């Protein structure tokens, strides 16, 4: 472990008198240290207890309660889950979310890697490209989403204007059931691909040049060098980014919330449905908590795998 050994800050290196005083003084010092430590941590512990640990427990309990903030919560057993599975929107939201995550992988997982590999080969304007690709990540998500709303406008939007200019058929984008989901994925991909690209670029710089040298001597072309050197060398980063992206995209909210609304069955997602249950129509916090618990069960597995993989990251 990188942590310094206990002796460095312990009485072992304390001045001679303290050492002679023996166990009593050491114990007192230890006690004082503990007291100071917990005083320092008091605010942090309180924040974690109130806004992380307690809500976790309460969220689980809430799934088996009826709570609308008006009447006192009552125990209802599995009723919330029963209602959830009976709601025709529930399977739709799950399917939409999986579709979003899947499409986001198709667009958003390969693209940053490809961009990073390409940028790593360019010998000019490197800083400029890195800044450009990261620009969308810096924008507040609401700005990105509202800006794209103008681009998607079927009448005066940029996309249809561009398509008309080259005599291609236009699209209804977010307003048509067939293209709505893809439109949401495009926004999300545009705004997020910068961070993955920067992380891959950092990873690419750690690949020893001799590996490429050796592969080239063995007659491997560019594609085979990517397949047999770049990808295996980055497989750890690639896996971690895959997990992170799945966890993030399964919680997609702002794109459907702002572009297609909370009632459109074509794009309603798990998070939007949770929001609807708790904060729009029925203020049914128990039902929303039950759905959150299910989402947590799925995502928790991915997150746990991520933490386990990165626990001793180089």
């Amino acid at each position, binding site marked *: 472990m990188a942590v310094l050994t206990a002796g460095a800050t312990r009485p072992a290196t304390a001045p001679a008198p303290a050492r002679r005083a023996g166990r009593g003084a050491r114990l007192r010092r230890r006690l004082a240290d503990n007291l100071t430590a917990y005083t320092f941590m008091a605010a942090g512990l309180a924040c974690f207890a109130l806004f992380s640990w307690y*809500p976790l427990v309460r969220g689980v309990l*809430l799934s088996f309660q009826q709570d609308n903030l008006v009447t006192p919560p009552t125990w209802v057993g599995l009723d919330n889950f029963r209602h959830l599975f009976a709601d025709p929107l529930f399977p739709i939201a799950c399917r939409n979310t999986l579709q979003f995550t899947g499409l986001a992988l198709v667009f958003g997982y390969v693209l940053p890697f490809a961009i990073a590999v390409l940028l790593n080969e360019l010998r000019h304007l490197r800083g400029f490209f890195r800044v450009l690709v990261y620009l969308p990540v810096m924008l507040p998500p609401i700005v990105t989403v509202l800006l794209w709303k103008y681009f998607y406008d079927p009448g005066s939007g940029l996309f249809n204007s561009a398509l008309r200019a080259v005599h291609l058929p236009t699209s209804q984008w977010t307003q048509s059931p067939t293209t709505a989901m893809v439109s949401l994925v495009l926004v999300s991909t545009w705004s997020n691909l910068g961070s993955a690209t920067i992380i891959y670029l950092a990873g690419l710089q750690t690949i020893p040049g001799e590996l490429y040298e050796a592969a080239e001597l063995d007659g491997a072309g560019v594609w085979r060098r990517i397949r047999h050197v770049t990808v295996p060398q980055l497989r750890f980063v690639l896996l971690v980014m895959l997990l992170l992206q799945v966890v993030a995209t399964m919680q997609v909210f702002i794109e459907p919330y*702002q572009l297609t609304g909370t009632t459109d069955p074509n794009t309603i997602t798990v998070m939007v449905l949770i929001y609807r249950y708790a904060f729009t129509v029925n203020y049914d916090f128990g039902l929303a908590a039950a759905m959150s618990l299910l989402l947590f069960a799925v995502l928790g597995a991915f997150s746990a795998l991520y933490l386990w993989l990165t626990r001793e990251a180089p």
Partner: protein
Amino acid sequence: MTTRTLVSAADLARHRTAYRAVLGAVTALFLLAFAFPLYWMVTGAVKSPAELGQPTPTLIPQTFRPANYADAWQSLQIAHFFANTVKYAVGGWLIQVTVDVLVAYALSRLRPVLGRVVLGAMLASLMLPAAALLVPAYLTVVDVPLVHANLLNTPWALWLPGAANAFNIYVLKRFFDQLPGDLLDAAAIDGAGRLRTLWSIVLPLSRPILAVVSIFAVVGIWKDFLWPLLVLQDPRSQTLSVALSRLSTASYVTPNELLAGLVIASLPMLAVFLAFQRHILSGLSAGSLKG
């Protein structure tokens, strides 16, 4: 020359024209994909509503009304929401950094009993998707246990949950762990208390990591949407992001005013990015995989 990459320097030299073509294509594509939308947003805000709504968009604004920005600032009350967001960001940053530095320092240097358990319990929160805590955390804010306060529509509803940031604590603790122990011992021998050592020795040595944590704290608060949407329902208390979302569907807001609002909301982030580009891009690649 730097280390060799996928394509060797010799190959690049041989195919100089191809390289030039790729470089030009990438430049054009990147400008179109990542810079042009911003250009369109900034110029769209100075166009007249009629020009903005016409089916063939104009690349260079035919009408030029910089007053749209002033209108948005005043009549949409963007100024008010901007001030709100600055207040949330500065206060949130101060509280987050203070609380997290104290926890990290105590865990790293004072090694309290059960310190590992505390750290473990905090890190476990990283495993929780934000979605899992949304509803119960909201109910906690409505009625805080023990003290029975209602934090809705107050800055504390953003500040206190934000302080419970396990990632910051982890990063700071790792940094503190690697500070030279001799130096801190010397301070103790000179009679400095724990707080004094933290303030005068540890913090000055930790400037780089504090910078990264601070930047990500401010950017995180500025960009946050879902949580402020839930806990700041009173329009007067809203952040710029939440207010823009609400204004975007209001009938009295013209598109160019809204675009001006979007530009104003982005400017602080773009300024932070250009100023701390190096910190952000290197902090991102260093931090994300070690969470």
